[in-house]
């Protein structure tokens, strides 16, 4: 399919990009790797008047170690995330999950920022950003602002980014000593979206899980935290049985979709099973 006509601009600086986007209003759209947007254009489900290509903004690429946090540029591709030694050392969950995104071709072009800004609840990175307590850094006409992952995903494919704002990077707190992580993704074909995904980080001390954070993929219109299971896991013994019990609350408060790939009940079941597995690996059981 051939997309409908649109105007295209490739600014050389972030300021220019912000201005072009702000002028474009609601009908302008940022394009980075294009791995989510281009299919929408080709299916003629999206009709932006203007595409602002941020691919030329090299400042938005790469990883910076800020001490307690990592600042990952929005244009860093999934493949770069998978192989970056700093990310692997301090935020391994991000690298592990990025390695499950679609296929190598998509991972080489698709970007972390694009994946988050697209806010597909079936995408892997949004749930990971939730579990890692990441902060989104956005630049708009009014300057820079930081948005917590918990406040970032508002609705299906809709984020807290204002029409003129560009996601420039993601600030991720380093996982300290004692923390483990795991991304469990259930899908039927290797490159498919997750039917359900579970991103978990847990800190273990004295044979117990001291605290855990769990993000769920494709369990609602937005990626969600499994608060019930987090509560139940905190203080639980680090044994399979105890974690399985805690994971029994993983689907609390979720509204999973029913579709060709699975009914809502099936997804709830998957969420519980996968959460138990993810917690077990994350807490080193």
């Amino acid at each position, binding site marked *: 399919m051939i997309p409908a*006509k649109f*105007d295209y601009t490739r600014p050389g600086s972030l300021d220019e990009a912000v201005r072009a986007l702000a002028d474009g209003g609601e009908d302008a759209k940022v394009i980075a790797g294009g791995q989510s947007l281009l299919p929408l254009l080709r299916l*003629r489900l999206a009709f932006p*008047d203007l595409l602002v290509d941020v691919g030329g903004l090299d400042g938005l690429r790469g990883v910076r170690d800020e001490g307690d946090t990592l600042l990952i540029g929005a244009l860093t591709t999934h493949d770069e995330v998978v192989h970056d030694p700093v990310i692997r050392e301090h935020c391994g969950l991000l690298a592990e999950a990025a390695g499950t995104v679609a296929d190598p071709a998509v991972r080489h072009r698709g970007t972390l920022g694009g994946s988050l800004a697209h806010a597909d609840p079936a995408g892997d990175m949004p749930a990971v950003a939730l579990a890692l307590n990441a902060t989104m850094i956005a630049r708009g006409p009014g300057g820079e602002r930081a948005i917590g992952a918990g406040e970032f995903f508002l609705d299906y494919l*809709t984020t807290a980014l204002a029409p003129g704002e560009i996601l420039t990077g993601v600030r991720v707190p380093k996982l300290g000593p004692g923390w483990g992580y795991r991304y469990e993704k259930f899908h039927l074909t290797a490159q498919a979206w997750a039917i359900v995904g579970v991103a978990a980080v847990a800190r273990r001390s004295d044979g117990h899980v001291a605290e855990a954070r769990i993000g769920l993929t494709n369990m609602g*219109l937005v990626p969600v935290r499994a608060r019930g299971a987090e509560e139940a896991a905190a203080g639980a013994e680090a044994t399979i049985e105890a974690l399985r019990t805690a994971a029994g609350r993983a689907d609390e408060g979720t509204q999973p979709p029913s579709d*060709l790939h699975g009914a809502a009940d099936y997804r709830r079941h998957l969420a519980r099973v996968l959460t138990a597995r993810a917690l077990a690996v994350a807490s080193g059981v």
Partner: protein
Amino acid sequence: MELEHSFTIPVPPERAWQVLLDVGQVAPCMPGATVDSVEGDVVKGRIKVKVGPVALTYSGSARFTERDEQALRVTLEASGKETRGSGTASATVRSSLQDEGGGQTRVTVHTTMHVTGRPAQFGRGVIADVGGRIIEKFATNLAAQLAGGGQPQAGVAAANGTGPGAAVPGPAAGAAEGSGAAGPAGPGAVPPPGDGVLELPVEDLQLPVRAFNSLRREGIHTVGDLSARTEADLRAISNLGPQSIKEIKRKLAERGLDLASPPPGSGPAAESAAAAAASRAATAGGASGAAAELAAPPMGRPPDEDAIDLLSVAGFPVLKRALPLAGLLAVLVLLVLRMRRRMRRRRAASAS
């Protein structure tokens, strides 16, 4: 998909009934709806659904299929086709009123909805959820409309925050009709370009935000300012692409206006430049195809935005396919030439 909503409003059933019967007042309760015309019981219009980058526009009509005054029940059937695709959407909205006494009425809205085509398959069925939320908003708006006993639409839009923003010609817009030239024009009627039109601010053209911002930066504030510019002037403005210019021309045409033509002295030159651009577009295909399209004379009907100019989009790949054929022809010609030369030589040899 079936949905049911019910709410109680503080007006007696008879009053709510009158509002419920007026399709011109009910239809705009649909979020994102624009009413194009109201003729008797039939409303024609469009509904724009926007979810993140996904934007769908359905155009179609709605009409009453059942009106039972005894049971206080009405059925509204709406169906539409995607304007830029082949999908369809239809809904049957059955509303009934129940007297709860003390001037209170209970309203039940039962909706059956069908969505077909790509949007129905996209996003693992989530569009259905979106549809559900749209109907929910419709019910909320309807509640406000009924509670107001048919107040002007603006009240509902304001109450809703992201209100439908629908322009309602006909009964509900009665008040606006008195305000003269600035009032909304009736459906289908293109007003002659009176003096007043040129004084209107550019805002009134309801251009896309980007086009509007770019024009304002160039000091173009009124419709008169705009129509004094030529197309070349507009093209020179940064951030204003062919798509935006097309939109501006369309909006001007709605008011019976057009962009200025180039000054008489430069007329032929400009024309030949346009022709050159067109021929360049034809040979090069691709990007300059848009320029050729702009140079085309304005048509009575706005050009279909989605019509694909195959030659400009896929000209090169198509031509590429012709390469083997051209090669074959060249080889044949060579062969023929060579045979002729050989025959001539042989004839010359036998003659000597």
